[in-house]
């Protein structure tokens, strides 16, 4: 196959490209230029947007003896990922920009362009497994549960999966990938993992958002509507958050309080006891299926609501264009805008954006 290897400059995508070459494919390396701002050199664990990362990717391609290009997706990235990220926060939701990037850039704009230019598939260093079964191609969790990235790939459709290649899915651990990189003479073998948001150069998401969303002083309310404190911008808070709340009025029961709701329009934050976070039901209208659609409109599954959360057994119902999921045990804090990925064992069934949540139990202020 003619494979386009997306090379971020990190160790995973370099080893993935190497394995594609070893498998006998005709491989071309491409680094996506996603950000035009920010620093030019890497500091700490940051990465994927700097000149240094582009250089690391280029040197890995050199080592593999494959052609290498830098493709400029910075405008698409700005429009579809960065501005979307800001808009979601502005609307009081908690978005996942990596999922957005997979959905709109890596497996959309890049894949589309690759196919148009004569490639058969895009190869990335994601930890997830593709299984070609009797009912089509399926996306499964990676062998290494600690590194599994199937959650952020939950948005991929059957068409996208058909042109995707994840050579690292069956790898037992990241240590193996690093050792392999070292054995192959790749200079990125010991490069630190990137795990923050790539377009926020210093990792200060709160400060970065404050500049764009504004940092206006607002009130913190309890569920009765009484003012219990103040804050410097509602966007800085996430549902379930406990730290960083400056509350002048103590809770009646003396117990710690948590963020229950963020209201961007009125710039207010609602807090309450931990029990009030318990969520019995999540629902959304924006869903996609990974490969085939479920055979029944009601089915059992496991649901995962964050990249690093544990999956929870649940019942899903699809009715009137709305997907509703009820976990067996309530979730501990869910923010609208988060993505829920549904699994059948290791297989990804699909995903949806959480628009609505239903509290588990009525509790006091």
């Amino acid at each position, binding site marked *: 196959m003619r494979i386009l290897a997306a090379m971020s400059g990190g160790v995973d995508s370099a080893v993935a490209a190497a394995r594609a070459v070893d498998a006998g494919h005709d491989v071309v390396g491409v680094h996506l230029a996603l950000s035009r701002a920010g620093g030019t050199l890497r500091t700490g664990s940051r990465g994927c947007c700097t*000149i240094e990362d582009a250089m690391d990717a*280029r040197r890995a391609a050199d080592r593999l003896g494959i052609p290498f290009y830098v*493709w400029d997706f910075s405008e*698409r990235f700005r429009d579809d990922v960065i501005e979307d990220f800001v808009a979601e926060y502005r609307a009081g939701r908690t978005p996942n920009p990596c999922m957005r990037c997979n959905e709109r850039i890596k497996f959309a704009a*890049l894949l589309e362009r690759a196919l*148009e230019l004569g490639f058969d598939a895009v190869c990335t260093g994601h930890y997830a497994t593709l299984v070609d079964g009797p009912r089509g191609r399926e996306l499964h969790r990676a062998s290494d549960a600690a590194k599994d990235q199937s959650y952020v790939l939950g948005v991929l459709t059957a068409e996208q999966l058909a042109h995707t290649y994840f050579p690292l899915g069956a790898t037992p651990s990241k240590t193996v990938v690093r050792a392999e990189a070292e054995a192959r003479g790749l200079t990125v073998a010991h490069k630190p993992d990137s795990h923050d948001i790539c377009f926020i150069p210093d990792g200060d998401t709160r400060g970065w958002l404050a500049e764009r969303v504004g940092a206006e002083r607002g009130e913190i309310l309890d569920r009765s509507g009484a003012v219990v404190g103040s804050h410097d911008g509602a966007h800085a808070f996430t549902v379930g958050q406990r730290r960083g709340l400056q509350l002048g009025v103590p809770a009646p029961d003396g117990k710690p309080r948590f963020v229950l709701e963020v209201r961007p329009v009125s710039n207010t934050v609602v807090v309450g006891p931990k029990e009030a976070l318990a969520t019995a039901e999540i629902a959304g209208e924006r869903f996609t299926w990974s490969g085939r659609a479920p055979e029944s409109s009601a089915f059992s599954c496991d649901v995962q609501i964050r990249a690093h959360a544990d999956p929870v057994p649940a019942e899903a119902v699809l009715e009137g264009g709305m997907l509703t999921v009820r976990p067996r045990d309530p979730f501990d804090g869910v923010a609208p805008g988060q993505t829920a990925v549904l699994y059948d064992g290791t297989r990804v069934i699909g995903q949806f954006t959480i628009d609505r949540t239903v509290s588990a139990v009525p509790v006091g202020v």
Partner: protein
Amino acid sequence: MAVYLDHAATTPLRPEAREAWLAATEAVGNPSSIHGAGQHARRLLEDARERLAEVLDCDPIEVILTSGGTESINLALKGLWWERGDDRDAVVLPDGEHHATLDTVEWLHAHEGAHLRGVALDGVGRIPAEAFAATLPGAALATALVANNEIGTVNDAPALSAAAADAGVPLHLDAVAAFGHVPVRYAAWRGGGASGSGLVALSVSAHKIGGPVGVGALVVSRHAGIAALQHGGGQQRGLRSGTQDVAGAAAFAVAAELAERERESESVRLAALRDRLTAGIVDLVPGAVPLGDPQHRLPGNAHFLFPGAWGETLLFLLDQRGISVSTGSACQAGVPEPSHVVLALGRTDAEARQVLRFTLGATSSEADVDAVLRELPAAVERARSASRS
């Protein structure tokens, strides 16, 4: 088979230049040392400087050897700025100049308060001499390309030089793209006299004519008021301190002599190849628009707008077929920007990303032209149907 049509980016090192470089490195000696070994190195260096001066039509003392075009341009523009006349704070900067010039002048604007006076290009990318002359009075300095590196348009350097002399403004000419391909005659363009105005500085680079990368020169009039950018041992009239590169100078001199000796015959050969390429592209690629000046043009340059086909995509597709071309100037991250030169022709931002430059040189042949004409039509068709990144 590799087809290299990016000679304007860099062109192969001439074997004679390589030999001259190797021969010069066999002798030990810093040309600034007083002893015999130093004197030997100095002789090699000054021989090279004299031969370069002969080719450039200037005095040997006027040849300041540098690390290349960018350094020469920086020395000329910043050096002239820092020795400018009282009450003069404007720099005449035509549109479409090379980034080495553009970014240097913009730096002077941002950090030194230089005022910019632009000169719009005409539809084929030439600097109109009258418009240029009209912006000169009272300016601290002016700069202009002898030939445009992207679209190949050749300016009327004698007229621009005369205008600067008439206006009493020091002029720098960037001859990096022109040198070796069209006549570059410093003294003839400058005219006589002991004035510090008119043509006082001219930049050239070795690797564009078959010399080594990392060697260039700035011709600096003995009458020019120009400040040094780097200080140290005071070499080269104190304008460019630092141990002098004897081997680089020797190789540059050989390359310059050969380029000048072959210039007329090679111009005819390359222009014929280029014209066949241009006619073929117009014939085979629907909608292709040749850009630049069809008359006043570098012999090895063909430049095209392919409406609806992104240059970046075309470059990739042709590269996949073994053909090396360019979208214009390269950029550090490897991401092509819209060409500011094409924008200066009055084209849109989208059009400025839908261009390709083909530049021919010493190794170019009929087979190269055939290869482009064979591969390009399908590449343009495919690029037109592909989305942008």
